[in-house]
């Protein structure tokens, strides 16, 4: 089994006529994803990679039974694109776009609370159920089918740790890149809850990083609500306080929380082993399985 994405996921790609949208639509199709439509205002009637394009997500969803959207729309219009997907409505929106203004995402987040839709991202690599479908830009070849759920704030770190798992024959049920922005849709706790309720997920790997308190809150959730074992990894142990390390979210305020150490301590106190290196994460998962 899997979470968020399965055989029945029918995808509309917003921004399919752009360079990234087109390239990754082809990649998603190659992986076996049911990409059933594209949506680009003014481009209705065209075709991209054999996929019909509609002017609106609403029409794409109605004509092609789409139930998920992937957003490759440029940052200035991506907030609006998220609203369009939420209003269609679809069950899952995966927003790849990086650099969406925070106030736009705040409004999207507000709207999201009134819907049953899962929104993943923005600024994320996407969601993949290995062997079934991928929504986003993740390189499919490093993933393998198995029983470990995977959730991460960082794209390339996802690839690194998943690669360590796959190399040892440890496959994944679903991998979710939740993104590193200050305001995101699906957070660690949402993802952990999905994996906890998935009988085929026997362990979860959670990769966090400095900044914010999401990992500390996830640790509390793990301690209180999870039977499925979790293994953690935290990036940014050597980050100096107050410096912005790439992601907007990755800034340590110096207030004692949000540091790598406070996150590691919180997870370990919740009974979650934390690997010092990606290889150590794989060691812990091997021990559990």
């Amino acid at each position, binding site marked *: 089994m899997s979470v968020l994405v399965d055989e029945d996921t029918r995808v509309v790609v917003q921004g399919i006529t752009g360079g*990234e949208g087109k390239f990754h639509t082809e990649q998603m199709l190659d992986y076996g994803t049911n990409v059933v439509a594209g949506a680009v205002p003014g481009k209705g009637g065209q075709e991209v990679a054999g996929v019909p394009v509609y002017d609106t997500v609403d029409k794409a969803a109605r004509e092609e039974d789409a139930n998920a959207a992937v957003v490759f729309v440029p*940052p*200035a219009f991506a907030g609006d694109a998220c609203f369009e997907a939420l209003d269609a409505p679809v069950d899952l929106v995966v927003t790849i776009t*990086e*650099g*969406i*203004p*925070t*106030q*736009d*995402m*705040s*409004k999207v*987040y*507000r*709207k999201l609370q009134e819907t049953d839709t899962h929104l993943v991202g923005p600024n994320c*690599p996407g969601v993949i159920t290995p062997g079934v479908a991928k929504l986003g*830009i*993740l*390189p499919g070849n*490093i993933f393998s089918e198995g029983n470990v759920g995977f959730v*991460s*704030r*960082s*794209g*390339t*770190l996802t*690839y*690194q740790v998943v*690669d360590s798992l796959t190399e040892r024959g440890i496959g994944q049920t679903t991998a979710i890149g939740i993104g*590193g922005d*200050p*305001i995101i849709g699906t957070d660690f706790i949402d993802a952990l809850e999905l994996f906890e309720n998935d009988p085929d997920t026997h362990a979860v790997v959670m*990769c966090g*990083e*400095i900044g*914010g*308190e999401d990992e500390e809150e996830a640790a509390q959730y793990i301690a209180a609500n999870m039977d499925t074992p979790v293994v953690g*990894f935290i*990036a*940014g*142990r*050597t*980050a*100096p306080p107050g*410096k*912005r*390390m*790439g*992601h*907007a*979210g*990755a800034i340590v305020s110096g*207030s*004692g929380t949000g540091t*790598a150490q406070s996150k590691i301590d919180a997870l370990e106190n919740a009974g979650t082993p934390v690997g*010092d*290196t*990606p*290889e150590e994460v794989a060691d812990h998962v091997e021990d559990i399985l």
Partner: protein
Amino acid sequence: MKLHEYQAKRVFADAGIPTPDAKLAETVDEAVAAADDIGYPVAIKAQVQVGGRGKAGGIELVDDAAEAREAAENILGMDLKGYHVDRVLVEEAVDFTNELYVGVTMDRGEGEPVAMVSTRGGVNIEEVAAEDPDAIAREHVDPAFGMHPYQARKAVYDAGVDREVANDVAGVLSTLYDLWEDKDGADAEINPLMVTADDEVIAADAVMNIDGDALFRQPELAEMQEDAAEDDLEAKANDYGFDYVRLDGNVGIIGNGAGLVMTTLDLVDHYGGEPANFLDIGGGAKAERVTNALDMVFSDENVDAVVFNIFGGITRGDEVAQGINEALEAFDEIPKRVVVRLAGTNAEEGMEILNTDLVTVEKTLEDAVQRAVQYAEEDSA
């Protein structure tokens, strides 16, 4: 993007928030003339984007022209926490009876804006927040509707602001919220908001951070942007458009994706080395970007060895390898040893074209980091 105090005050004043009479000066003579014009006492304030300017000697209160000259001479040209002071704000000194704090920011945990008021203004508000969180009244705002006037009043009364000035403070907070929203603020703060004996309120300081991702729709603010780099290397990184942070160690680190680059730093530390920098070349990097990245780390005289770690998704290993070859072939003698690890999209193609006479290739991240740490130790010895 952070505005200077004088810029933020101009934005606040244009919106109707009372600010002290003030002038910007670039020379000592200009500063004294401005002070004479405004009338004593005045404050002379260094315009650099660091906190704690007062404690660091960057703000002086003066009573006459002689003192103004001395203060301007002290402050102009000084090095304040690594920043060169080339301008001062000469500002009417406000005689106050009370100092308040008002601010608006994004509560990332809640995903919505929050307005804040405290009667504990004039001090480090982060310390107040940590020690006595109840001393700050907080009002969350629905971003779809903006802040209702009653919410501003509620925050002000919850904070215990004196009845005589409550309406005016609520008005300032409402204006501040609207500005924050209109200008795509990340943070907007007034600390202190001074209350005078006549029950007037005046913004004695002004902080405005703009969301860098929204500058495309804030052209007037984007024009105000000034280079705030701490040193030449960070300025260079800004020119190249890299996410770069300089650190104290001697192992240069280049990679793609913030999480992976941070992990590479952590592994250098784990294996006994010391990271010299954080450098994220971002997604989809082409050859030229790779060349620029190597130029960055080679320019850092502290660097003794470099680890180049790429896990390609969007980024293609062959493009990166091409960039590494081109960059290194341009040197008669390569200044530091470079260890390369390529994985992911087109990594095999990259490995094939990578010129192994110029770099050391390692297959795993762990091996690459350990090799670079070893090289750095050898070369610094």
